[in-house]
């Protein structure tokens, strides 16, 4: 059953559904040993076990946070210092450019831009790819673990048999 969202690309393959996490992870590791790197694994919640089996290392999202933070901090100091000099008004006997009070503004902008860019990075990295669904079952957001392997027609039977032996409760061509 598909989601009511546009599908950009359909890739033929085999979709297996697991109830047991250890069986799913064993199957993933065996497939990766075969040299398959383009698996998609669906879970209802993040799992370190699945992450290790799939072999993920790091996420580039940190770069968005870092660049956002540095931009915000620079923008905060640049804006306050430039605006103070643009119309130099002495208020309360303080010198025109005083860095200490501007730390508050720079800090808030660091967090603001870093937070917004993290959110934007997340959207950029995951959501467009999600529309590009290849095989999905609504039970994957409930309690099942889904493993999708892109496969040509000739390979499908062998992969189906592999998944059944590995303990999948349901296998179908997607």
């Amino acid at each position, binding site marked *: 059953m598909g989601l009511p969202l546009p599908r950009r690309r359909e890739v033929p393959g085999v979709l297996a559904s697991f109830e*047991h996490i250890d069986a799913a992870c064993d199957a993933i590791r065996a497939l990766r040993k075969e040299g398959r790197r383009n698996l998609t694994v669906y879970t209802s919640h993040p799992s370190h076990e699945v992450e290790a089996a799939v072999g*993920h290392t790091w996420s580039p*999202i940190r770069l968005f946070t870092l660049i956002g933070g540095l931009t915000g901090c620079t923008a905060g100091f640049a804006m306050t210092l430039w605006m103070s000099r643009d119309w130099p008004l002495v*208020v309360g006997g303080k010198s025109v450019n005083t860095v200490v009070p501007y730390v508050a503004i720079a800090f*808030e902008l660091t*967090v603001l831009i870093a*937070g917004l860019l*993290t*959110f934007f990075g997340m959207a950029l990295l995951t959501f467009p790819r999600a529309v590009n669904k290849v095989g999905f079952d609504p039970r994957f957001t409930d309690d099942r673990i889904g493993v999708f392997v892109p496969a040509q027609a000739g390979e499908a039977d062998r992969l189906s048999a592999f998944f059944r032996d590995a303990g999948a409760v349901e296998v179908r061509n997607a």
Partner: protein
Amino acid sequence: MATVAYGPNLTRTHAEITSDVVATLSAPSRGYLAALFGAVGLFLIGLITFIILLKDGLGHAGYNPPIMWSVYITNFVFWVGIGHAGTLISAILYLFRSPWRTAVYRATEAMTVFAVMTAGLFPIIHIGRQWVFYWLLPYPNARYIWPNFKSPLMWDVFAVGTYLTVSTCFLVFGLIPDVAAVRDRATGWRRALYAQVAMGWTGSDNQWRHFSRAYLYLAALLTPLVLSVHSVVSWDFAMSLVPAWHGTIFAPYFVGGAIYSGLGMVMTLLIPLRKVLKVEHLINDYHFDNLAKLTLLTGCIMFYSYSMEYFIAWYSGNTFEQTTFFRRAFGPYWWAGWTMIICNALMSQLLWFKKIRTNLTSLFVISIFINIGMWFERYVIIVSSLSNEFIPWAWDGLNPTWADWGILLGSFGWFFMYFLLFARTFPIVAIQEIKEMIPMPRLRSGGGHH
């Protein structure tokens, strides 16, 4: 064992967790509808009052020199403070990997966003000419005069604006996987709606990889942010030279008080809500016991801060400080001063007893006292200091009017209305985080390396 970590009473499977939370979005009960109508009623009172103020001006409110910050600024500080407990539970306790936060954090994060939204109204109401509120923003105006960034009021604009934006991102972000779970169980127009909100979430390994990291970074950004926001609010006071405001204790004192007041509001909201939405088994004594312990900790911080304020006023030898604090306890506002001390510093001490911490009726009563006490704390700080500043012939009192109370009631209506609508539209208990606490079934015995 995850069931032990989560609480002694939870023996649910993943599928049951999904169906329990999805059930909260079914037809509303009478209790819910009554609460919603009450909230909308209060909001309308506030709206009518605001329209009259807009038409006639701030003359209706109890502004009276020298007290030019009065009930509206009290409300502002009160509502900003409420939000802080939400971020403590959702972001700070996430970094500490505290297991009990999972069931309650969604409700508290929503509370944060709606409380800060409420707070944001008050500076705009307070300025009187609401249509020029954008003067607070740094934009090139006709005379090229920029905002004064040395003023704590400007820091406040940036702090509260950032807090609202990043908290909203955090709330929406955490909601996406849960909305996807609801989408896959919904039918008809609801399914189409949730599909749009879930933005195509499928729970693939790649999505979780980025989600987990991004969530961690947002939590790490929110942690110092929440401490900064109420520190900046406290500097609105502490940067002045007004007696009893000009103190270095103000930032930690305000942050502690903000979390304390927010925890009070969390309990006020959750104790009835868990019954109305029938999630008593998900939000149980275990969670309230932990919430109460945090309340006790922050209550002790309040006790210490109040004691220190009086001690330093005496120890400093500063006559103005001493007079202000003497008048707080025995002057014309003695009733407000003692309400604050009794509700905040003393009532919280009851939470040393486990029997009280696990009795929801007594917790609810204490939470109401906390709400009242923390509102009065801000009232006392503002009114008692401003009513007798340095020039004795300018001393005067404050008499709040119907316009002050109307806006206060309206703010409660505005807050509860959004919260109740949220609780019926989106999963108020975090589905995916609770599932993370419960081990997945295995073919072989023995744990994974989670």
